[in-house]
């Protein structure tokens, strides 16, 4: 699959809208997630309190980020973990590859981590002499298909069962010839099991970093993180610096929020705290543990007043509830992070110049903020990015001309009303049975849907008439 770029957003959207089944496939998963989340919240009357606590925990850690980073580093070193720092994704990726090369690794297993995608780790491995094995089932599917992820929780949601059947038959050593989903999962289990046990290096992300112990925490339903990390001799964690929380007790409220918001389950099946390398005589576990702490635009967000976005715990609820995401899917965003959270993050990870169109792909209906488990004001942040985009003159000239013309016109009410009246007459010329299928200057709208015929007169005209009638009546 050809990888979309964020700067081609408009083109990507047209491509997505032209795929007849895409919307159906996306909604199959997101609608289910939406329903299950609603049920989970209804069954947890204390949810709002948990949400407020979760927000405060994140805000507290972000406020004292340097204190907690230093504390995390000190405690991780005390546990024998080797701590690395990376300002950029490229640096982080290089650190990981260098560690693998020092250990002469041939096979590397990886459990799902959006940060890994963000720093370009998958491509870095694919361009190296090492074999990368994705162990999360969805990541396994998209690795075989050569796709980027389309959702942060269900990265392969754009792939149907029929696609998976074809991929597994082509790539698995002992594939199933059944098309039952259970048999397909068994096929992946067989294929990956030996790879888990013979891997040289296990790479994971981290859902939380605990400052008071220097631990990292992984959260999965499949148990693939533990199987990725335990057998190899080396474990490498890649984590964004915003993953910090003061302690395990502070991670607990966030764990309560994370799964309920992501999948509607009350908790994931596996929550594991990883505390460095194996202890003397431990029955299993890696002999060496590295952690790569990554900035890649996070401190820039802090400096630019976007720290609320650093609360994000990557649950995906905002995209499951986003009307835009549900229409166009994840690939159209051309970025690792799609949906509302992605539209805020991508301009910082990439640049606003290339990702400014994503900030406009929002109806401002506020659903993302309503369901965010840590109260991130996504519409406010998107509006602020739109303002920056305007100030930096990233908008197309036609948009700038139209908006500036409107601003001038709005200062002259009589002229505005006159032109509005002319507009109504103009639109009626193109109207058929109450709908406009085509009209000059509106092809962006009428390409995909009809425009409703305006009322017989302008709003102002009707308003004045009504006011007059009322005062006359009184």
């Amino acid at each position, binding site marked *: 699959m050809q990888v979309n770029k964020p700067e081609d957003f408009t083109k990507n959207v047209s491509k997505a809208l032209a795929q007849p089944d895409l919307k159906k496939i996306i909604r199959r998963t997101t609608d289910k997630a939406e329903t299950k989340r609603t049920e989970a919240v209804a*069954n947890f009357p*204390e949810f709002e*309190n948990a949400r*407020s606590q979760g927000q405060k925990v994140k805000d*507290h850690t972000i406020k*004292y*980020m*340097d*204190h907690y*980073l230093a504390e995390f580093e000190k405690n991780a070193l005390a*546990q024998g973990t080797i701590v*690395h*720092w990376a300002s950029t994704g490229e640096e982080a990726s290089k*650190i990981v590859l*260098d560690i693998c090369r020092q250990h002469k690794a041939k096979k590397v297993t990886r459990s799902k981590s959006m940060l890994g995608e963000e720093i370009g780790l998958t491509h870095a491995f694919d361009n190296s002499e090492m074999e990368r094995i994705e162990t*999360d*089932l*969805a990541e396994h599917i998209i690795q075989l298909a050569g796709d980027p992820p389309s959702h942060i929780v*269900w990265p392969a949601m754009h792939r149907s*069962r029929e696609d998976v059947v074809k991929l597994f038959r082509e790539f698995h050593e002992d594939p199933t010839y059944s098309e039952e989903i*259970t048999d397909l*999962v068994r096929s992946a*289990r067989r294929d990956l099991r*030996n790879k*888990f046990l013979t891997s040289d290096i296990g790479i994971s992300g981290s859902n939380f970093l605990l400052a008071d*112990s220097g631990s990292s925490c992984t959260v999965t*339903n*499949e*148990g*693939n993180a*533990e*199987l990725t990390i*335990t*057998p190899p001799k080396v474990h490498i964690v890649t984590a964004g610096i915003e993953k910090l929380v003061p*302690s*395990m*007790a*502070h991670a*607990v*409220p966030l*764990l*309560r929020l994370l799964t309920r918001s992501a999948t509607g389950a*009350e*908790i994931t*099946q*596996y*929550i*594991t*705290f*990883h*505390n460095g390398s*194996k*202890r003397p005589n*431990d*029955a299993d*576990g890696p002999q060496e543990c590295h952690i790569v702490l990554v*900035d890649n635009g996070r*401190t820039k967000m*802090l*400096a630019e007043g976007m720290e609320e976005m650093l609360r994000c715990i990557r649950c995906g609820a905002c995209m499951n509830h986003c009307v835009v995401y549900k229409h166009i899917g994840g690939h159209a965003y051309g970025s690792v992070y799609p949906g509302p959270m992605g539209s805020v993050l991508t301009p910082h990870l990439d640049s606003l110049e290339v990702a400014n169109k994503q900030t406009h792909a929002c109806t401002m209906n506020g659903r993302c903020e309503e369901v965010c488990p840590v109260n991130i004001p996504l519409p406010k942040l998107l509006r602020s990015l739109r303002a920056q985009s305007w100030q930096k003159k990233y908008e197309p000239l036609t948009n700038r001309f139209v908006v500036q013309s409107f601003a001038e016109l709005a200062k002259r009410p009589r002229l505005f009303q006159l032109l509005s009246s002319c507009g109504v007459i103009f639109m009626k010329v193109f109207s058929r049975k109450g709908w406009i299928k085509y009209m000059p200057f509106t092809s962006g709208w009428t390409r995909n849907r009809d425009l409703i015929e305006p009322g017989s007169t302008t709003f102002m005209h009707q308003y004045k008439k009504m006011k007059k009638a009322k005062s006359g009546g009184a």
Partner: protein
Amino acid sequence: MNKQKSELSRTKIFSAIKNAKPTVTMDVKTIQQEAFELLKESEFARPKLLSEDATQALVLRIEAGLVIGTSCEKISTLDDLPNSVNQFFDKHSLPQEIKVQGIDKLEKLDWEGISTDSDIENDNTVGLCWAEYGVAETGSFVVHSSPKMPILLNFLPLYLIAVIPKSKILHYMDDYALIANEIAKKGETPRNMCLISGVSGTTDIEGVLVQGAHGPEVLHIIIVEDQ
């Protein structure tokens, strides 16, 4: 070279944070106090349990089908465990072979008729582990890595039996976090602390739940009342 680069990045990250937040206090006691205050909110921000009794709450949660792929039973003493394991074999039509965690408590039981050993291998069918704790809130059992606890025991077999001593069943995850903190103070933090709440599952193909994605497909929890 990499170390120097890493150090440079470290300096850059810390100075970027400082520049972004120049007025923030770094008084450690103030920060610790603020962090402590946040935890007081947990009492009002956690779900009600199905029973005030932690053991009962855990059992009810499993019996209500809220813990994926999991069943449970209570036994009076540890001596009853081999009999329960035999019944589990019968229920699932399994051969009488089991990988038992290599601790005295389990190894010294009378396993007559059941083949037991503690060497974990790829294709083992049934595993038996001793949980350090249970958590009623999430229907979890907790294992700690150690010389006698291979983490893979909990992930490689298709069927897993976890034994939880009744006295170690906690109400909430917060209670476990306090215990983990005490363990850390003694400098005895294990490499891994795993909270396991159900079986390995996935909904990655068309949203359909399948159990046994990579790890166990069936989990049976046995609570020992006199432990």
